[in-house]
């Protein structure tokens, strides 16, 4: 009777725990979604920044023309005159996801616009990502840690920065895919089921579709497999988890046009193949060990080891020869800069110029993962006590990602899930110990405390047990390894049961500790909400500034793009620095010379050279590219710091990298970049300076630049080959038209007269827009 009752109460508790977990997960999903809506509330439902505009444009095309046209899309609106094959050069995961979402919503009569779907894709997927984190952490350390980690991930600032509503970029879905792939790998590793292994390959395929960061997975998982082998943790489950992933995953990855044969040809993937060979050799060794007597085995070992080594070396030699034959040794620049951190800054200005490729300082960690930075070491140690296959994977994940994040600040995004998992484990263990101690002292008995707070740990134990039974059912391979696994699994659960009886801390200090940990968590929440609301929600297409006389909205970008789309011919070409390429094609629907997909360095260098050349030379370059309009972004009037003058040195550097007559020192006075009266003549005569500061002196009479905090060097000058056609309300975008070449037949006097009258007419017609 009593036994029945306890078993019944156990079932009830189990059910209650499941319902509770489900509710908590639902709430976590709601929180993950809603914390990302600050950008919509504070600004409007609009696509953010630069790359998302391209993705939005591609999605529009997909929903309008269908998958096959999208696949074969050749875009002639960009990289004029080269054009760009979109279908073959884009990671289609995000676009296909949003397109499918839109289609489903429309088919069930929810008529959302494509833009709305795009804006809210990222928040929806961050809810999915937090659920995936729950699953992954549950596999590693149980449901309690899983729930904590999911809650932490739902609001980790680093991930919020890439997934606020409107930030419609690859990372939005890729982080979910990354975590889910890891979950399925661990699930396969824990169960040894081929079903999960297949799902794992499909999840990997989705990740390859979504983001170039998939190379992280295809290097991390082999590293883990190798680690398991080296530390003597080889098991048939490991084989099932790894071999199908490599075979199926590589085949599937090769189906994505942008990856194609890279999946077998570039060095980033070679590690997986090498480990694939090694795991087979090891599997063979274990198999032979199983069927031979110990003496025979010793003989066999020598044989197998020597044959295996010869094979390995042969393959290694082939690989090295292959790698050495390619110019960058088969590695792409971005990956190389991860291994040799100083690589990019030395050789590739186009990578070094991007701010998110810089190494972070310590405040970046505090900003992006906040108090998790304190908790991670505890999580690492918890993963070692006891060490399982799954927890060793978590450790490897955090170690590699934290190293990579140290090299490139954008990879903080990959670190964030790992930090959440580790902190979730640490927090859950800490709460486990402290609450157990409190309850032990309050209840005052030696028996295992059975009330509410024990739930999480209870569920953990059940899980471990059920997994064990699954293991015994599903594994039908080598007997020896099975025995070993059984021992492995039984040990930790035994240890934890013993711990529950005896290991407690004093009451008062435990209460204090719980209080402090809760305080820490509260600070985390405050920080995350603050970061989501203040730091990461700006769409950067609409700017606001708060001053003593209220809120100012700067909507100059959209003003300029709207002007372009209404006042220029459909086939006109617009030149600007590459940052504004995607926005121009998406919002103004005009052809651009270069855009944010920086695939052709020479083309970018040509534009950089034109902008750093004197007017006539620049006109010649632009005219040769059929450019009609030149667009520059200028922040000197309102103090917008990321304008073209501040980016100008990179234009010079990138231009000078291809055209050696552009030299950086010519633009610097004593190594200093300045635009005031001390600036070099080359600087004051280059096109970028002239287009930015043309008629600037008319605004305040002395030409004071609010970004550089100085008066400009050359105030009164005329443009001979360009004419100003539009300047936005706050002067943030200025558009110039290339004058047509002068007519040689007309007389000199006539020409100058007509020109004069032209300029005077223009100046009377177009008043100073600042008034």
């Amino acid at each position, binding site marked *: 009777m009593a036994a029945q009752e306890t078993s019944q109460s156990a079932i009830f508790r189990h059910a209650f725990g499941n319902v509770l977990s489900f509710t908590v997960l639902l709430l976590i999903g709601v929180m993950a979604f809603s914390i990302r809506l600050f950008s919509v509330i504070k600004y409007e439902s609009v696509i953010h920044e630069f790359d998302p505009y391209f993705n939005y444009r591609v999605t529009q095309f997909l929903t309008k023309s269908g998958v096959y046209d999208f696949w074969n899309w050749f875009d002639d609106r960009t990289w004029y005159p080269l054009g760009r094959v979109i279908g073959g050069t884009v990671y289609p995961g995000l676009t296909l996801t949003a397109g499918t979402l839109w289609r489903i919503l429309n088919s069930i009569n929810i008529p959302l616009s494509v833009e709305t779907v795009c804006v809210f894709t990222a928040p929806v997927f961050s809810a999915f990502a937090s659920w995936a984190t729950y699953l992954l952490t549950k596999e590693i350390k149980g449901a309690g840690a899983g729930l904590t980690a999911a809650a932490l991930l739902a609001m980790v600032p680093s991930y919020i920065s890439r997934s606020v509503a409107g930030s419609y970029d690859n990372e939005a879905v890729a982080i979910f895919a990354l975590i889910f792939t890891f979950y399925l790998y661990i699930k396969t590793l824990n169960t040894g089921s081929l079903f999960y292994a297949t799902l794992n390959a499909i999840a990997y395929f989705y990740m390859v579709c979504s983001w170039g960061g998939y190379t992280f997975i295809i290097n991390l998982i082999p590293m883990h497999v190798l680690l398991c082998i080296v*530390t*003597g943790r080889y098991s048939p489950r490991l084989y099932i988890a790894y071999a199908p992933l490599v075979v199926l995953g590589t085949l599937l990855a090769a189906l994505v046009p942008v990856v194609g044969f890279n999946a077998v040809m570039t060095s980033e993937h070679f590690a997986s193949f090498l480990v694939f060979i090694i795991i087979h050799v090891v599997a063979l060794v274990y198999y032979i060990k199983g069927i031979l007597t110990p003496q025979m085995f010793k003989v066999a070992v020598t044989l197998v*080891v020597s044959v295996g080594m010869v094979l390995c070396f042969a393959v290694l030699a082939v690989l090295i020869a292959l790698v050495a034959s390619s110019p960058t040794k088969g590695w792409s620049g971005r990956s190389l800069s991860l291994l040799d951190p100083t690589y990019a800054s030395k050789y590739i200005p186009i990578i070094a110029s991007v701010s998110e490729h810089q*190494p972070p300082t*310590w405040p970046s*960690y505090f900003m992006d993962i906040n108090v998790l930075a304190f908790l991670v070491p505890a999580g690492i140690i*918890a993963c070692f006590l006891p060490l399982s296959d799954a927890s060793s994977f978590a450790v490897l994940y955090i170690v590699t990602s*934290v190293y990579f994040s140290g090299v490139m600040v954008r990879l903080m995004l990959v670190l964030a899930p790992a930090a959440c998992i580790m902190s979730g484990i640490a927090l859950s263990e800490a709460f486990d*110990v402290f609450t157990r101690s409190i309850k032990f002292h309050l209840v005052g008995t030696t028996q295992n405390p059975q009330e509410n707070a024990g739930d999480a740990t209870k569920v953990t134990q059940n899980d471990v047990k059920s997994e064990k039974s699954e293991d015994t059912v599903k594994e039908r391979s080598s007997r020896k390894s099975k025995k070993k696994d059984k021992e492995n699994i039984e040990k930790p659960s035994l240890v934890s049961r013993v*711990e529950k009886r005896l290991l407690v801390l004093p009451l008062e200090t435990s209460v204090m500790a719980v209080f402090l940990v809760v305080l820490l968590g509260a600070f985390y929440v405050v920080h995350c909400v603050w970061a989501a609301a203040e730091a990461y929600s700006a769409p950067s297409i609409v700017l606001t500034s708060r001053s003593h006389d209220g809120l100012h909205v700067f909507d100059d970008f959209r003003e300029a793009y709207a002007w372009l789309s209404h006042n220029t011919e459909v086939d006109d070409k617009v030149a600007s620095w590459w940052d504004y390429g995607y926005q121009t094609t998406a919002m103004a629907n005009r052809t651009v010379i270069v855009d944010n997909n920086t695939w052709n360095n020479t083309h970018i260098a040509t534009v950089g050279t034109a902008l750093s050349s004197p007017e006539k030379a620049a006109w010649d370059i632009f005219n040769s590219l059929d450019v009609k309009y030149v667009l520059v972004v200028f922040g000197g009037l309102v103090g917008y710091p990321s304008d073209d003058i501040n980016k100008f040195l990179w234009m010079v550097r990138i231009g000078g990298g291809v055209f050696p007559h552009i030299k950086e020192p010519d633009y610097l006075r004593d190594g200093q970049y300045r635009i005031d009266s001390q600036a070099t003549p080359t600087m004051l005569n280059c096109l970028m300076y002239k287009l930015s500061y043309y008629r600037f002196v008319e605004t305040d009479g002395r030409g004071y630049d609010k970004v550089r905090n100085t008066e400009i060097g050359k105030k009164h000058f005329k443009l001979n080959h360009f004419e100003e056609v539009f300047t936005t309300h706050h002067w943030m975008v200025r558009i110039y038209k290339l004058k047509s070449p002068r007519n040689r037949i007309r007389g000199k006097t006539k020409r100058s007269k007509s020109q004069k009258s032209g300029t005077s007419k223009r100046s009377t017609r177009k008043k100073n827009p600042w008034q």
Partner: protein
Amino acid sequence: MAISPTTFAIAALLLISHLTSPAASLSSDPIVTELSALQSQSPTGVIRLSDSLLRRILSLPTPRPFHALIFFDAHHLHSKPELSLPTLKSEFALVSASFQSNNPNHKSKLFFFEVEFQESQSSFAQFGVNSLPHIRLIPPTASDVKTESIQMDAADYSRLADSMAEFIESRAKFTVGQINRPPVVSRKQIAFIIAVILIMTPFFLKKLISGNTIFHDKNIWMAGAVFVYFFSVSGAMFNIIRKMPMVIADRQDPSKLVFFYQGSGMQLGAEGFSIGFLYTIVGLLLAFVTHVLVRVKNKTAQRLVMLFALFVSFWAVKKVISLDNWKTGYSIHAYIPSSWQ
């Protein structure tokens, strides 16, 4: 290259008389031959310039048959790390050696010199050099070296040998070509290392199969993982890539040292490591309390250690928060309903 007609005529004469003589001795100028000899004596091709030698070079009629690139050196300043004279000197030598090996025909068109402050002070005065590092190019046409020679800007040696070579290419119209850096490990060492690895592999594999290498000790892995974490969150990669010093001297008061730099875009070495330590210590203490301290039987010891751990953790978190607010200037605040205030 503008070779004066007279030089050319003499060279032609010489060519007729010594048809078999090598290219280096083509120029008749005794100074050039002497310089070539000095150049070939020096292992890197950098010639030590004395006052008298300089005087003789400058006494040549103005379109001299060669460019001269002079590195101004001072031994007593080698110890000052901010000047980085030894690095620049070795890079200068590297450019010289690379130039001479890549352009054997132009060896006598561009000479690399170094001047030591202690032994040739008058040369320093002649060029008007009063601060180091200083590298100067004397074109063949320069008669007054003080005004007509070209000083290499700081930007031109910022990227060491590569940018020096670019300077030479832009000003003297010589292509230096590939900079031949000596490899970090020589060919023999590589062969030795490979041999050692080959010999060690079977032993290692044997140990691996029997399962007792240091890789099987999980404490080592744990320490390694925590160390990598500490290393990364302290921003050490930033320090390495940007070559940040540990501390810098205060601008207002040079005797004081600045350990913490205000402004989030930059950090100093010591600053990063101390914060990395604070980041790590809290987690380590938490792990210690939850995994080790619970096993201790003595209640008082537990209580004391825990109080200590809690205090240190609280202090560390508080310190990092305040330092972060100070450094970045952010004021993180909660969103409390206005009715509460």
